């Protein structure tokens, strides 16, 4: 187990290297120069040259990358080209918001997806099953931004039950914090709920056909004990796999959802950074996002071990 953890953690290093090199390369392939923007709107060519050399933007790409890596391994991700704020501060400030939003979406996905999947599998072929299947298909097909618009229109504008935009930090007002999270979490998590319900339904149906379930039922165990205690754990493996993928997907989805709800998260920061060509900031965001995805994958792998002792044995 520990060895697996070690090898996974070591594997992160080459992965991060490749990812940051790609991002660096992509940005340098795009023509243009942030120094021109920075020098102001009434600039002269001398001013631009001055800004460029002050920021070291006139050094060769390899030198710039080397400098960035050198600082990054010491935990210094540099300063934003445009606001001269520390990248770690900017990303750190936004990171929590995005993680909270992602978690909210995940909670919604599980809270809706798991019961729906269990119900549909238990009552296979009934109207409940058909309803869940229909709902899940719609949930997957409906783009999150469209659902977001509908939710805002009906729950925030026509009826002012929930805020239409914005995010209130937990520390400021826990009740408002929860309210500000409801609509974005639903919009972001709906496809996750649908996928979870579908996965769980089909894998539960497989498990129900297994001998041990039949045995459990035959010895008179109550139906919900069979489902919740025995079947669910074994049916969970494919669901956990899908959930792992969903989290990366949700993280990407926050870019759109944060924009619609005006939530100051990592996604919004990413859009600003990319449109301004703010290289250090883009790199910081990419590294953090990569780390999150790697972390999630690691947790998923550890979950396999918990759910299936056969994996643990290795």
């Amino acid at each position, binding site marked *: 187990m520990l060895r697996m953890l070690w090898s996974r953690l070591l594997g992160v290093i080459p992965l991060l290297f490749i990812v940051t090199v790609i991002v660096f390369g992509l940005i340098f392939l795009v023509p243009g120069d942030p120094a021109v*923007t920075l020098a102001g709107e009434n600039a002269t060519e001398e001013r631009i040259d001055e800004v460029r050399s002050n920021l070291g933007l006139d050094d060769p790409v390899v030198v710039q990358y080397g400098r960035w890596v050198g600082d990054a391994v010491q935990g210094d991700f540099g300063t934003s080209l445009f606001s001269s704020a520390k990248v770690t501060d900017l990303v750190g400030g936004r990171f929590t918001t995005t993680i909270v939003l992602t978690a909210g979406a995940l909670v919604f996905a599980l809270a809706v997806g798991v019961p729906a999947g269990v119900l549909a599998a238990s009552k296979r072929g009934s109207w409940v099953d058909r309803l869940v299947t229909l709902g899940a298909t719609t949930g997957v097909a409906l783009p999150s931004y469209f659902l977001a618009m509908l939710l805002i229109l009906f729950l925030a504008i026509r009826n002012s039950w929930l805020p239409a935009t914005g995010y209130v930090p937990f520390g400021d007002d826990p009740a408002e914090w929860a309210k500000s999270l409801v609509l974005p979490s639903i919009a972001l998590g709906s496809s996750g709920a649908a996928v979870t319900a579908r996965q769980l339904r089909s894998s539960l149906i497989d498990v129900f056909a297994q001998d041990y379930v039949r045995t459990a039922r035959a010895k008179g165990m109550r139906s919900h004990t069979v489902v919740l205690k025995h079947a669910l754990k074994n049916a969970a493996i494919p669901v956990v796999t899908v959930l792992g993928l969903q989290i990366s997907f949700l993280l990407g989805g926050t870019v759109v959802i944060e924009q619609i709800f005006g939530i*100051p998260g990592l996604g919004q920061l990413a859009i600003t950074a990319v449109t301004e*060509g703010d290289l250090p900031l883009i790199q910081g965001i990419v590294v953090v996002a990569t780390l999150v995805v790697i972390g999630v994958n690691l947790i998923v792998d550890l979950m396999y071990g918990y759910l299936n002792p056969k994996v643990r044995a290795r």
Partner: protein
Amino acid sequence: MKRRFVPIVLALSVGVVAACGGGSSSEPADTDSGSASSAPVGSSSDSPAEAAGENDPTKVLRVSYTVGPSRFDPHRASSSFDNTSLFLTYDRLVHQSSGAEAVPGLAESWEFSEDGGALDMKLREGVTFHDGEPFNAEAVKANIERGQTVENSAVSSELAVIEEVEVVDEFNVRFVLNGDAASLPLVLSDRAGMQLSPAAFDNADLDVQPVGAGMFTVAEYDQDARIVYEAYDDYWDPDAVQVAGIDFLIQTDSVTRLNALRSGQIDWTFVDPPQVSEAESAGLELLTVPSLAYYHLQLNGSFEPFADPVVRQALNHAINRDAIVDGLLLGIGGIAGVQPFPEGYFAHDDSISADLYEYDPEMARQMLADAGYPDGFTFEMIVPTVPNITQLGEAVQAQLAEIGVTAEIRAVQPSQTADIFYVQKEGQGLVSPWGGRPDPSQTLGLLYTAAGFSNPGALTTDAVEETSAAALEVQSPEDRALDLQAASRQVTEDALDVVIYFTTTPVVYASNVTGVEGWFSGKPEFRGMGVTS
């Protein structure tokens, strides 16, 4: 759907009524040209909008805007859009009226010396910065010098005309100039004239924590998300501050901003043209604000066909401006124009109307043939990848195709546009917005003189050089306006540019907001705005 626009002066006084879309016509605003003696327009506590009820000084005005400042250091803030958030907390030597003319700010009055070699300013007495430091001639001298020399200054080129700042006495200052600088007062109404407390020059947190002498202090700042402003009790013009603070949200998406307003989370914002009908049907107040900013097809004169004035005039005749305004902007997002200054502005020459370059593809084709291009030509047209500019670029491309000119679109990242077209001098044409400048001479100099930074092919004519130089000479505001108009006329007749339309911004707000004005500069100042209970 054709709507009418509220001229600036009308917008100033009408406020709420204007929201019903009732402006009479787009008649030019009656601007008296730049006298330094009129009262600051912002302190319009007599706005009839307040008939709706008394302002409640304990209320916070909640607004949503598209961008936050690049930084709060006024001399290093690099974008003119920074002005909206900076104006609230930094006061400038010179203010702008809502009609974009120079009016007294921290300087009560100013006068050029007889030979135009110096500008004398009398400063307002009794002003203190937010940190308690006094505002005086020494502070002005220190600020100008900092703007000229601070590392990564974004205003040094604007202040280069000031050779030296002399402290005459505590509240009188003299700028010794090294060239014609009639534009200086309005230049000082921008970031170049913002006054920062000299005690804060070396503050490490200046980029996030401003120390000015403006209407509000910054209590909280979450970059690109929210700025919390609190009223500065000692502000020299109490009428300008009618609220306890401003909650300034930064939301890039127009639909998001409108949703926030409709659900009562904010009081004031502006939207894109497609959201206007929704805003109106939701019962919100609407004010359509014209501005100095325009969209144009800019030409690089080093490309042979564009060096020929007949070709440039043909291009002007090929553009169907009305169709673009009606089709792309739904008739409410812009006003067609051919001069580099909009109607109602003191540098606009009223003797030239948009008819000068009437849409006439037939004639344009003939003109091209006369100029030696019977089969047209092909050029690379740079178009930044912003949705509305992409649409405009495609419309221009289609209209030019009508006269046999092939514009090959090269899409570029918005932040890289200036570098590619102005510095690398790539591409022969550029479709983009020009934000306007505080002083008309800045636009003339940058875009239409050979030395202009934003004129990659040095496209100009002798007549334009002469008229632009004349407009920089120190003279009475009335005479200078005439010179500016002459320069504008010359630019237009020589077709140095293909101006398409001036933007108008639909401002929407809740009915309990008072004192809403349209700012010609395109940078709302929120002076004197209030919220009734």
